[in-house]
């Protein structure tokens, strides 16, 4: 069993507009990218479970081959900077992805 953090070169999150946070997982090489893509460990369903959100909040899930990347986007419950928002730029929402296990 390998963790996603060992296979990815970049794992990041950031605002995409004021109402969404987008997550990018980039792999240094094609082999790691394909391994994760084929593993079935990174899916809408898996992301919804991990973050304990309804799947409807995941607005996009994209496998982006030119960048050896997988990205997904979640809708914020209120726009960035609203009272109570602790991450204005959505920049620290990715760490739970590290421990996803890849067969």
């Amino acid at each position, binding site marked *: 069993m390998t963790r996603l953090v060992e296979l990815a070169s*970049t794992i990041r999150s*950031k*605002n*995409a*507009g*004021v*109402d*969404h946070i*987008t997550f*990018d997982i*980039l792999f240094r090489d094609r082999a790691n990218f394909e391994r994760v893509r084929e593993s079935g460990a990174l899916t809408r369903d898996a992301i919804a479970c*991990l*973050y*304990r*959100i309804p799947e409807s909040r995941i*607005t*996009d899930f*994209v496998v*982006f081959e*030119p*960048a*050896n*990347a997988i*990205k997904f*986007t979640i*809708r914020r419950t*209120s*726009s*960035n*900077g*609203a*009272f*109570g928002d*602790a*991450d204005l730029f959505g920049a*620290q*929402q990715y760490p*739970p992805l590290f421990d996803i296990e890849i067969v």
Partner: protein
Amino acid sequence: MLLAARRLDVPMIVGSASDTGTDAAVDRFIGLIRGIAKRHSLPPFKLTAIYSELSVEAVRKYLAGGRVLEGLDGRDRATDEDLAATDRIVAVMGAEPIAAALADGAQVVICGRASDPSIFAAPLLNAGHTPANAFFAGKALECASFCAEPFMGKETVLGVISDAGVDVSAMNSKQRCTPTSVAAHTMYERVNPFREYVPGGYVDLTACQYEQIDPITTRVTGQRFVRDDVYRTKLEGSGKVAERRLFIAGIRDPYIINLIDQVIDLAKERLRKRFGPIGEGYDVHYHLYGRNAVMGDLDPSPAQAPHELGVVVDVMCTDAELAEQICHIAAKALFMTRLPEIKGTAGTAAIFLDEVLTAQPVYRWTLNHVMEVDDPHELFRTVAHTIAS
């Protein structure tokens, strides 16, 4: 930047002055330019300011005329209530007003709110390049070396646009632009990496080919520009919600940390008794650094027993004096918690600054909408100045 641009006689374009692009921000930047020009005795040059602020009244009239503002990102159409909650609106300019300023001889352009790729696309369009190449280049270059590897922050990158495509090169000797690094940047801060929306249309990246043509350069071809049938300008609006006060406290006692939810419930109970229901006229949020302040409900594994807990008491209220009082009580309740399990009875929080801090007011995004316009220039005001030291 200004000194180099004037020495080389190339135009300098600043997009989204001060990030927000308000009129005041544009004027502040003009003041900075004047000051630098004077300090360095620069020969006279032409500065063009492009303002992008819209009055709430103008937008209200637009709606009253029976027209609509469609929402972006799943928002509903804008309502009169949205406008009533709005203090400031900026329209996001495309390449057109910037290109016109440059064609008119501007040597420095200070823009109000502008889409990032547009400030790069404007001179390229003037030079006769296709919108596909101009806007793709803008997207690739907008964050400097974010399109290069390894990641180093914002180093210089060079874009060369020709009929062969868009060539992007890293200028820092430790970096390279590779097919994957350039492709990866196209998805940065975007929901969808296949469409880069700009005012007037989008760049379709579905068929892009990324090719390494030398050790530091990647050539991109296959981008296509799809023009909207109706020109839409994005409006960004914000409105003041309330005054804000903060208090910072730290907790070390493991019993208190363990009972923190109960401690906060008790604190909130005191607030309700004194100020009425939370959420009606005021609100309070306890940021628990050390547990799950950063991710909140999205955190799958909040720390159960952190060694220390940092608490930021965040209070908003429309009335400034009341905000101060509420924050004071919300914070002092942490210091004077009385629960049977807690042995420390002389103070239940560490306070390094016994003072309610005044923060800037709370604002929220009220508009993230698009307005249909007949002319890409119509929401923007261009003013030319001669800057003479």
